[in-house]
């Protein structure tokens, strides 16, 4: 494969575009509402109406507005765009007759809705537009040209330099600067190196990575290949949760297609660069999102973390230097190579560059996936894009970062969304879950919910996490059953500190975050559940018996 051949395929695909394109979301969320049947019906109806030469019926990935699904987008060649929401399989006929100018009572959505209009799409640029099971679609929008550019015009140093200058930080949650990580792997001595993509999206309430993998798998593969060239690796692993069967099958198709065209495998673009990607399927362990646990799992072991250093960048898979990044991080790479570091750095804040994909869910009117520039005030996301809480309720808090994050109360909604600002509020950026809670949500119950999660998911290797999470859960249970006293609350706070500071890995170190952040902003909800203790001291007053 050469660049001109690549461009020829792209041009041919573009030239074959029909007058109208009917895009049906065939992502896991919409399929559960029978969008697969709908897609088939649309194809049948288009054929029946004799419109095959004018209308393309395309399978696409996630368009983002999952709460309104199944979605059907209609692109007219002259530029007009329409959107249909809550489309049922039986609506296919009405939509096709609408194309011929007939009436149609299917609910119409607004493609210019603030939910869409306020987004800046880099990672999700092709989501809902390309057919994830057809590599030609990806090539038509310039796919794999960044890889060609990186292989023929750039060397390891210049790629890493570009990534460093772009200010890209790890999208898995911790926000480690990607350029530094890549540089470390590149510099680490070793004949064999690996690139690993972390698609073990275990954070409940988050589905960004699933959507990217299901909607645009080649984007991730291209990012991994560029990374492999930069750090000197020839083997990649994509670790995906078993809970995402559709993402796995689409990745398998994508890898096969890329191999067939010589975009993966040996001698890519007729350079000496070889790169193969294998998929590894997870088996349902939250802790495997932690990098050293994930590597253990790829090696076929129990997914238990180990102390760092040595970091995987120095000693990773089978003791070799390993570059480990999140799905979304890899999905940013080809855009940075294509458009340059300065372009990427023009989005976001001083320390947090680019965009971030969030899964906006919970008690909010507009559910779905959004991609926004870093630094956007939380209020804009929740109120303008999300439309606030439904049924006349008010937003009480926004939970970010899942079981490792915290709850941001309504009075702090003007906080800009970037790594530092969220950290100051005791939460974290996390992988991108954003669960909105309204005034009916009990914050102590939420803390208990997360602690039960961490207790179940603790791998059991280190004592603070294994035993501490159980004790914290029991204390929270005692509080919610109204059997606890001030002394128990003190004990809980003490335990939070202990577990946070002494656990081995991120799971334990961040497990107390939901408790600490709800205690910080919603302490009165805890205190309202406390009983007076034996000394008869008033609830919640200072100076009561100290915990031991």
């Amino acid at each position, binding site marked *: 494969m050469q660049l001109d051949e690549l461009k020829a395929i792209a041009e041919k695909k573009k030239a074959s575009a029909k007058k109208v394109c009917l895009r049906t979301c065939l992502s896991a*969320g919409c399929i559960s509402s029978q969008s697969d049947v709908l897609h088939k019906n649309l194809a049948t109806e288009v054929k029946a109406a004799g419109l095959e030469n004018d209308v393309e019926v395309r399978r696409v990935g996630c368009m983002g507005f*999952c709460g309104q699904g199944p979605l059907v987008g209609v692109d007219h060649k002259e530029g007009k765009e329409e959107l249909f929401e809550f489309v049922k399989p039986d609506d296919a006929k009405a939509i096709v007759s609408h194309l011929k100018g007939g009436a149609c009572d299917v609910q119409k959505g607004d493609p210019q809705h603030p939910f869409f209009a306020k987004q800046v799409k880099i990672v999700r640029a092709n989501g809902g537009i390309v057919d994830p099971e057809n590599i030609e679609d990806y090539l038509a929008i310039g796919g794999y040209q960044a890889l060609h550019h990186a292989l023929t015009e750039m060397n390891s140093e210049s790629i890493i330099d570009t990534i460093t200058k772009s200010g890209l930080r790890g999208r898995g949650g911790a926000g480690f600067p990607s350029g530094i990580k890549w540089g470390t792997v590149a510099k680490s001595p070793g004949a064999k190196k690996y690139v690993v993509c972390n698609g073990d999206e275990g954070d*409940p*309430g988050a589905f960004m990575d699933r959507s990217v993998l299901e909607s645009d798998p080649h984007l991730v593969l291209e990012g991994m290949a560029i990374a492999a060239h930069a750090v000197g690796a020839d083997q990649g692993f994509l670790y995906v949760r078993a809970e995402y069967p559709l993402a796995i099958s689409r990745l398998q198709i994508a890898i096969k297609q890329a191999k067939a065209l010589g975009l993966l495998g040996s001698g890519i673009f007729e350079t000496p660069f070889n790169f193969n990607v294998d998929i590894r399927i997870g088996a349902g362990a939250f802790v495997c999102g932690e990098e050293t646990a994930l590597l253990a799992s*790829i090696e*076929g072991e129990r997914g238990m973390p180990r102390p760092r250093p040595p970091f995987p960048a120095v000693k990773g898979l089978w003791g070799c230097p390993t570059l480990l990044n999140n799905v979304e991080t890899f999905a940013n790479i080809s855009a940075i190579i294509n458009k340059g570091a300065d372009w990427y750095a023009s989005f976001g804040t001083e320390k947090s560059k680019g965009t971030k994909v969030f899964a906006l869910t919970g008690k909010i009117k507009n559910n779905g996936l959004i991609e926004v520039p870093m630094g956007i005030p939380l209020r804009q996301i929740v109120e303008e894009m999300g439309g606030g809480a439904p049924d006349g309720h008010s937003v009480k808090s926004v939970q970010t970062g899942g079981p490792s994050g915290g709850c941001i109360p309504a009075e702090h909604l003007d906080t800009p969304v970037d790594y530092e600002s969220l950290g100051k509020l005791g939460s974290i950026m996390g992988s991108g879950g954003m*669960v909105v809670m309204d005034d009916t949500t009990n914050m102590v119950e939420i803390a208990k919910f997360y602690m039960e999660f961490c207790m179940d998911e603790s791998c059991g290797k280190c004592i603070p996490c294994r035993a501490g999470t159980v004790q914290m859960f029991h204390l929270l249970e005692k509080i919610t059953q109204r059997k606890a006293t001030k002394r128990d609350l003190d004990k809980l706070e003490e335990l939070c500190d202990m577990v946070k500071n002494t656990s081995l890995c991120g799971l334990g170190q961040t497990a107390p975050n939901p408790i600490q952040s709800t205690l910080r902003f919603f302490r009165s909800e805890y205190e309202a559940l406390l009983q007076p203790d034996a000394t008869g001291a008033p609830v919640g007053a200072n100076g009561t018996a100290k915990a031991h």
Partner: protein
Amino acid sequence: MSATLSHPNPGNAKYDRVMKVAAGDKRFKILEVTMKKNQFRHDSLIEVLHKAQELFGYLEDDLLRFVAYKLKLPPSRVYGVATFYHFFSLKPQGKHTCVVCMGTACYVKGADKVVEALQNKLKVKSGETTPDGNVSLLTARCIGACGIAPAVTYDGQVSPKQTPEQALEKIGQWLQPA
């Protein structure tokens, strides 16, 4: 770190029993093909267990022993991995399975009430199977369908925006005598 077996040889009573069972069952052959495809590599253990569960529905002791013998791994390592990951089940599942997603988005939208209703109806706790082996009630951490919360998976089919009433109705179809 290559672990070896102490007694993987014929003559070992457990080994002989497992191989005898395996000889008469085609599924073991298919499983062995999967292992062969992975060159019997130790790091393919999780893939092999996925295939085993797909073939047999759950991982019983002799099946785990078979995997251990074939991959030349200590049974303790195979058992350790099988019990570490939630996805692997060591007990048979019911004829029908109902998986309620208990991710955060589903939880704040009332998935806990769906679970409660189902527990009361089926008279089992989540993670259990009804005594007649008809229905298994399970909860999932997050199936990534947060946009359509609360989501429930009935026999592998995800259903969106479920209420306790809808869930009970669905389950009711399974409970009717055939």
